C-alpha cells in the first residue's frame, strides 16, 4: 500500500470474483430478514463491507474516480425518510404508529409479513450508505493529513 494504486495483482483478481458474491450475500440477508436470521442492519453492514473491500484492494484513486459522494448521502437520507414514511403511513391509514397495513400473505413466503420487508429495505439502504460514507470520510481525512 505504498502507492495509492492498491494492493498486488493477486488481491485485485480475487477481489473481482469475490466482491459480487459478498454484495449478493448482503442482499440475500436483507431480503430474507423475516425468514432466517439476519435483517436490514446486518445486510447493510455486509454491503458496506463489500464496497470497503473494493476500496482496500484497488486503492484510493479508483475509489475517488467511481465513488459518488452525493449519491451515498442521498441513499442514506432516502433510507431514513423511507422508514419514517412507513411509520407515518400507519397513522394515516389506521391511526396507529407503525401499523402493519400491508397485506401479510402466508408464512414462509418471500413476500409476506407486511411492512417488515419494507422496513428491512429502508434500514438496509440507511446502514449501508451511512457506514460506507463514514469509512470514506476517515480515509479522505488520512490522505489530506499526509500532504
Amino acid at each position, binding site marked *: 500500500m505504498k502507492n495509492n494504486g492498491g494492493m498486488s495483482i493477486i488481491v485485485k483478481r480475487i477481489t473481482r470474483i469475490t466482491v459480487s458474491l459478498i454484495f449478493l450475500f448482503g442482499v440475500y*440477508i436483507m431480503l430474507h*430478514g*423475516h*425468514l*432466517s*436470521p*439476519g*435483517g436490514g*442492519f*446486518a445486510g447493510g*453492514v*455486509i454491503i*458496506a*463491507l463489500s464496497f*470497503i473491500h473494493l476500496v*482496500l484492494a484497488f486503492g484510493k484513486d479508483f475509489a475517488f474516480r467511481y465513488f459518488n459522494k452525493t449519491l451515498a*448521502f442521498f441513499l*442514506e437520507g432516502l433510507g*431514513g425518510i423511507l*422508514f*419514517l414514511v412507513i*411509520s407515518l403511513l400507519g397513522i394515516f391509514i389506521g391511526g396507529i*404508529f*407503525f401499523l*402493519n397495513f400491508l397485506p*401479510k*400473505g*402466508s*408464512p*414462509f413466503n418471500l413476500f*409476506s*409479513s*407486511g*411492512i*417488515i420487508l419494507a*422496513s*428491512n429495505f429502508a*434500514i438496509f439502504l*440507511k*446502514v449501508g450508505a*451511512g*457506514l460506507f*460514507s*463514514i*469509512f470514506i*470520510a*476517515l*480515509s*479522505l*481525512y*488520512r490522505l*489530506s*493529513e499526509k500532504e
Partner: protein
Amino acid sequence: MIELYIILILMIIAAMASIYIEDLLSSVIALGAVGFGITLAFLFLKAPDLAITQLVVEILSLIILIKATIKSNRDINKEKNYISYIFLASFFIIAFLYFGYKAISELPKFGFPITKVSSFYIREGLNKTKAVNLVSSIILDFRAYDTLGEAIVLFTSVVGVLSVLRRNNEK
C-alpha cells in the same frame, strides 16, 4: 454451558492482553479476539441474529482500527507512579464487585427469564405478523419504535462524523 465459561475466560484474557501489550496493532488484534468471542458466546446462547450482526460490525470496526493504527506506532510513556494506580484500581474493582453483586442478585436466574410481556410475542408473533423469524417480527413490528430510535442514533453519528471531518474533506 462449560464452553460458554471457557469463552468468557478467554475473552477476559484477551482484554487484559489488549491493555498490556505495548504494540498498538497487536492490541487491536487482541481487541478483535474479544469481539469474536462475543460472537461465539451469542452462538452458544442460540441467538444467531445477534451473532451475525456482531460479526459484521466487529469486522468493520477492526478494519477501521487497523487502518488507523497500522502507520503510527507511538511510544507509550510509562509512568512509575504505581501506588496511586494500585489504590485507584482496587477501589474501582471493589466498587464494581459490590454493585455488580447487588444488581445481579436481583435478576432472575440464568436460563429462567420472567416472560410476562414477551410470552405474548412468542405465542402470537407468527399469527399477527406472519413473519417466521420471531426476532424480526419483534424489532420491526411490535417494538418498531425502538428500531426507529436506533436508526436516528445511527443517522446522528454519521452526520456528526461527516461534519467533523468536513473541512479536510472539501479542501
